[in-house]
């Protein structure tokens, strides 16, 4: 459904997107996972025909992003990272406007987003600018869907949104996916990667790799240990100073440790940390965030 081959975009000397190759299947929920400055927004702007690439090529639904830009624009929905609806139009007026742009009507397509719009209907006459953050996000998703697109591009839809609303939003995406929609979504929150069929890890314009969330975790290089003790504030620094340590990163109430796999290195570590009370060291399954940090 989406295919990019070695696509690049530079701004001055900065390689915002450096030779990315991506294949997204029809009906797939594909995640672009990476922090600010990774190139996620630029990549969306290339695929949505808002920017011309400096190298490489890409197609959406078999159409070329440069030659067929007018046709492509009819078949995707795009939710930019910044709220971009008309704040002084009401909820319903915004929806009507986007439907009209694509020569369709609310009535014709509202069934596609009925579960989401049903929560908005009681605010139908409220100006979009006066909605709460969570409701604005739901309206933006409805507006991106109202012309019945084949592909949905969602640029950081959950940034700055609390964890409860974020979870709700991903449930909505699963509902849309079940209707056969292809969805490409970006997020800086590593914990959301689990919700995607496949994830691409990106950072600083580089494409670090793509796989299912399960395989990304399975292919983690080496073993990962969780270390916790009573005085966490000094523990990270002490672990970083341990000779066999590769990396030590605080992770909530424990420290995640990668260590050179020598015989007895964990025993040495226990001795090294023997001053700590309630010391717990255990091997754990890495999270996506661990995988990401091991790759950058």
């Amino acid at each position, binding site marked *: 459904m989406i295919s990019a081959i070695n696509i690049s975009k530079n701004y001055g000397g900065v390689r915002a997107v450096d030779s990315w190759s991506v294949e997204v299947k029809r009906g797939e929920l594909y995640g672009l996972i990476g922090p600010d400055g990774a190139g996620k927004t630029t990549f969306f702007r290339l695929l949505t025909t808002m920017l011309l690439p400096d190298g490489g090529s890409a197609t959406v639904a078999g159409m070329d992003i440069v030659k067929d830009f007018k046709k492509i624009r009819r078949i995707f929905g795009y939710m930019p990272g910044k709220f971009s609806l008309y704040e002084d139009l009401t909820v319903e007026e915004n929806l009507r406007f986007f439907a009209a742009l694509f020569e369709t009507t609310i009535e014709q397509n509202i069934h596609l987003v009925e579960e989401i719009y049903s929560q908005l209907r009681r605010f139908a006459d409220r100006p979009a600018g006066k909605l709460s953050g*969570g409701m604005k996000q739901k309206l933006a998703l409805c507006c991106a869907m109202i012309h019945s697109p084949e592909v949905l591009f969602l640029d950081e839809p959950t940034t700055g949104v609390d964890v*409860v*609303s974020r979870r709700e939003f991903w449930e909505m995406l699963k509902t849309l996916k079940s209707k056969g929609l292809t969805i490409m979504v970006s997020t800086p929150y590593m914990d959301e990667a689990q919700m995607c069929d496949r994830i691409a890890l990106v950072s600083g314009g580089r494409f670090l790799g793509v796989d299912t969330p399960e395989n990304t975790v399975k292919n983690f290089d080496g073993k990962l240990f969780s270390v916790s003790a009573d005085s966490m504030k000094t523990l990270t620094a002490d672990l970083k100073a341990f000779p066999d340590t590769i990396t030590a990163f605080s992770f909530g109430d424990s420290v995640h440790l990668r260590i050179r796999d020598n015989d007895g290195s964990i025993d040495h570590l226990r001795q090294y940390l023997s001053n700590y009370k309630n010391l717990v060291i255990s091997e754990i399954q890495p999270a996506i965030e661990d995988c990401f940090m091991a790759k950058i």
Partner: protein
Amino acid sequence: MKVITAHNLTKRFGSFTAVDGISFEVEKGEIFGFLGANGAGKTTAMRMFCGLSRPTSGEATVAGFDVFTQQEQIKRHIGYMSQKFSLYEDLTVKENFTLFGGIYGMKPSQIRENFGLTVGRLGIEKYADTLVGGLPLGWKQKLAFSLSVFHSPEIVFLDEPTGGVDPVARRQFWEMIYDAADKGITVFVTTHYMDEAEYCDRVSIMVDGRVEALDSPRNLKQKFNADDMYGVFLYLARTAKRS
């Protein structure tokens, strides 16, 4: 010493009670996490503590100054950093610090001395005369934090300081927060990353304008029988009635 005291602090907008009688105290040098769902009233509360919004009723002091009558003194004694990057991109690193130091009434000699210490700590002496706009994002975030504590405030308010920052830089950022707290600067921080809630000495969770829970992460997890702060947050946020 208490750096923040709040007693029944309330803010109404017309018939809407954004902050509904919150009461708590924050100790000097404490890292205080201020959590809540979108729309729970965090930003409104923070604006009152920063002297930017007058409360409707209740009492509160920040750095010993009254939020009703001494808003200007409050602004001089606090630091503030938001997720939105706020340095001037078309000024150099040094020019930014000189400008902000001047605004806070620091002496030129003091600005020079503090600036030397700051760039030394960040290891960016070479970039003192580089335009801020050209620096990598992770550095900008660290500079913004350094700037927010440059005038040695008693307390610094950090509003989602790590949003969108890469996971390694996010952890380095927290090491800077620890350093500041060790020097006695009180840290008042909001975040949507639940692992970061674990790094705070105490965490408060707002629901519908009220502080529904306030304790150390360990005690909160015990009280709500949750494995992590995410579980605690989810439990409380689900009780919210506002949308």
